[in-house]
């Protein structure tokens, strides 16, 4: 009787069981990792969306401000402010002007002047300009 009972007892195949458990564990981990990655992907996506929205908002703000600046520095607006006395035009004296001489033609002395506050140089620059235009 005892002999029969011993014969019908199945042995636990530890190796096989371990392999299965490891397989299932790996599969579960892969699944969890997939879910984790997917969540991360969504989270990063949300961050990207947020950043894009912020960038767009900044761009829109920038555009709005630029348009306001353009309007407030337009000739019509400034003229109105001038007429209303909010701003004033001061004439610039001729002696306070720096004239940029033409870049290509040099003066007779061969010196190529770029800018000058010297009245004599200004006359020279004007003369050379006239001679070119003729």
């Amino acid at each position, binding site marked *: 009787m005892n002999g029969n009972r011993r014969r019908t007892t199945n042995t636990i195949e530890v190796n096989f069981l371990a392999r299965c458990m490891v397989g299932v564990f790996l599969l579960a981990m892969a699944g969890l990792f997939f879910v984790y990655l997917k969540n991360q992907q969504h989270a990063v*996506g949300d961050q990207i969306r947020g950043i894009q929205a912020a960038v767009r908002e900044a761009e829109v703000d920038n*555009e709005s401000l630029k348009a306001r600046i353009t309007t407030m520095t337009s*000739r*019509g607006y400034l*003229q109105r402010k001038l007429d209303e006395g909010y701003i004033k035009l001061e004439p610039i004296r001729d002696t306070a002007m720096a004239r940029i001489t033409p870049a290509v033609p040099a003066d007779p002395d061969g010196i190529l002047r770029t800018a000058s506050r010297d009245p004599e140089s200004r006359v020279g620059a*004007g003369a050379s300009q006239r001679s070119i235009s003729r």
Partner: protein
Amino acid sequence: MRGIQARIAVLCLLLVLIYTVFAWRLINLQVRDHDSFSDIASDKHSIKLPIQAKRGRILDRNGEELAVNIPVRTVTADGTHIKDPAALAAVAAPFLEIPVDELTKKLSTQKPYVVICKRVSEEKAQGMIRAMEGAKLRGLYLEESSIRIYPNASMLCHVLGFVDQSGKGVDGIEKTLDRELSGHDGFRKIEHDRKGREIMVYRGQEQLPEEGADIRLTIDMGLQAIVEKELDATFKELRPAGATAILADPNTGEILALACRPNFDPNKSNDAKPEQMRNRSISDMYEPGSTFKIVVASAALNEGIVDEKTRIYCENGQFSYGGKILKDHHGSGDLSVSEILMKSSNIGSAKMALRMDDNVYYQYVRRFGFGEKTGLPLPGEISGLVNPVHKWDMLTKTRMAMGQSVAVTPVQMVMAMSTVANGGHLMKPRLVLSKGEGSVVRESVPASDAIARKTANFVATALERVVSDQGTAPLARVDGFTVAGKTGTAQKISSHGGYLNDRYIVSFAGFLPAEAPRLMGLVIVDDAPIAGSANYGGLVAAPVFSRIAGNAMRYLDIQPESAAVMAQSGNATTSAPVIR
């Protein structure tokens, strides 16, 4: 025992069958019909989000912004997402500036797309979204949009034009270059969650918009401001039916300033009347009067029919031809070509025309660009009116010589006068310098060579005398510069035929410095309600030209040529001008 085994076998078989059916269905859903179900799901949650291309700006030649965009939002509603229209309306109404009742009515819909409000500022739109999120409401969404503004208001309105509600160009450069300015909208295929937020992971195909090109005009706003200011003053003082002023570079054909009165504010185009929107510089034709004498003089000289020394008998002011009497304002005997232009003799001009073959004369009129569109990129340009030779009657030739029986546009006249100024080349007018970054619109090229340089120089010299004390336009003088030009005084044509008494279109077309022209200008004053004895080009238009040209020369920092001016001005302050 066998019975139990059979039952187990049947049970197993049933289970296998059931699971096979489930598996089969699963395979059908997940594999075979995957694409179709995916599309259905996608259709439900995905949308093709348009990405609007920014409309290009319009700039002057120095980069000053003339037309720009302000970003705004369009608020739309998805009726299928709205559970409590009244609550949503109560939250959103203050931001949209719509009465709550009215908004509630609009939101009580099942339509998935309803435009609720356009042109909502970014601040208010974002405030509304935050308020909705705070109240845990949904159903209102934002779309990107923009509105076009013209910072200089009415300045340069006839060139810039305006856009309609949808942002499409309706008039001016906005219309003719609409394709370049508009660019191409892009799109992005996205999927959204039940709150309407984009699920980034499922972002699909994306095509970025092709932004509209910035258009750089040849207009110089410094010069434009000078022209506008003077034209405003003239319009206010004389109250004419209309006025036009144009400044151009005679050597390149570039239009530097262009203004017409009456005008309008393109920011409020809905309030503008058609009369205000009409660009008189290209869509109005007028009989040019004596300014047209440059054509007959140039033609006769170029053909060798007359020369510098030829003297023409001007019948002491009364010339009978074709059964009609042709009169000069001041009777003269023999006059040279130069004197005919200086004194603006109708008889002298008519006699020069009569010496020419009809076809040759007609060809010269066409060579100066009359009778065809100049090609300026603005809508509504007309070609003027030059009758072909076979339609001429006996008097046409003599009338044309003094600027009657022919109709021109102001831009045509500017280009014709530029031909004399630049040595005989008829230039094609140019209004656009570049279309977009890096692009350059074809450089200025002459449309044709109308007359020889020698002829042009002679006529130009004669036109300098027009601005002398003996000429018809001493008031066109500009301190420090030699001016060459021609006055024009033409009676207005009646809609019933014939001419209207005491109603004139007066003009002055001139250029300076005469020796090396840098600037060409035309001023036209249409039907100013002033006495006929004072309504002449030399009295009305020439002073306006003088003020514009003087300020323009200072603006352009062109050095005055004192010696030349002394010669032209003489004792101007003491002598009374002879006008015609």
